[in-house]
């Protein structure tokens, strides 16, 4: 006769949704605030241009 632990283990295993864990949806984005941007800029010595907010560009037409 299987032990109680063994039965519980089997129930747990059957309940596991592996596929959802393997292909998780992208979480909602939370954008960094400017204080952290500044910290990163200081830390990198100004080399990480792409980590800065994009430069505003005038619209054509």
């Amino acid at each position, binding site marked *: 006769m299987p032990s109680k632990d063994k039965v519980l283990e089997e129930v*747990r295993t059957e309940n596991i949704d592996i*596929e959802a864990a393997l292909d998780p949806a992208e979480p909602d984005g939370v954008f960094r605030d400017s204080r952290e941007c500044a910290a990163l800029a200081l830390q990198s010595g100004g080399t*990480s241009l792409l980590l800065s907010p994009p430069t505003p560009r005038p619209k054509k037409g």
Partner: protein
Amino acid sequence: MEQSSTSALLQGTVLDLASDVVSALRSGDHVRAGGTLTGGGAGEGVARAAVRVLGADTLLPTALLRVPPDPGQLAVFKDAVAAHPPRDDAAPAVVWSHWAMARALRRLEQPLTDPLADDPGAEPGAGWLDDAGWQLLTHQLAVLAPLALPGEECAVTRAARRRPVDVARGFVRAVRRRDWQQAAGAGRWLTLLDGVPDSLGLEAGLDFVRLMGGSDPRVALQLEAARLMPAGVLL
């Protein structure tokens, strides 16, 4: 109720397992990599499922440091591959993560003398990556970060190689969205790709990811992998 407690148990075991791998990558000790699996803390089925979720990275110390895997850990890994094949209607990332695990086992059996000699006909398709925008591409590559290995040759790595600027753009987006896991996975890919813009500041970016998200063992695992790549960044 049961489902949520099971999910929490699985997530906790995945984190423990990832911590073991990080410890092993930092110390070169394969025993640490198998600690969660051989220590009896998690139930057999949950441990097997956790290995399936962490995927081929469970054997990352073997792939990168060439230390032999712990026999007990390897047995659970093989069980996980056998017990959790992708369903017929599984998403491509699920199919590929299973392929990566099988690939890791094949690498163990015919070691690293000829890592590119696998049968390419057995590969799943990767057309979904060619059609993907840069955001989805980066998300999917981060999910499939276990495939970002030196010398790996498959359709996913070829898709990544064709689009280094898109992956760099996705890395920046992930950092700005505070998605540390995606950022770390994308960063790991970028350490392997040619044509990454110097202006990205990958090293500083990965430092920042470590600072902000490195307490999550899954993030730390990707950062350690990036550090250990042949052209790895200094972290």
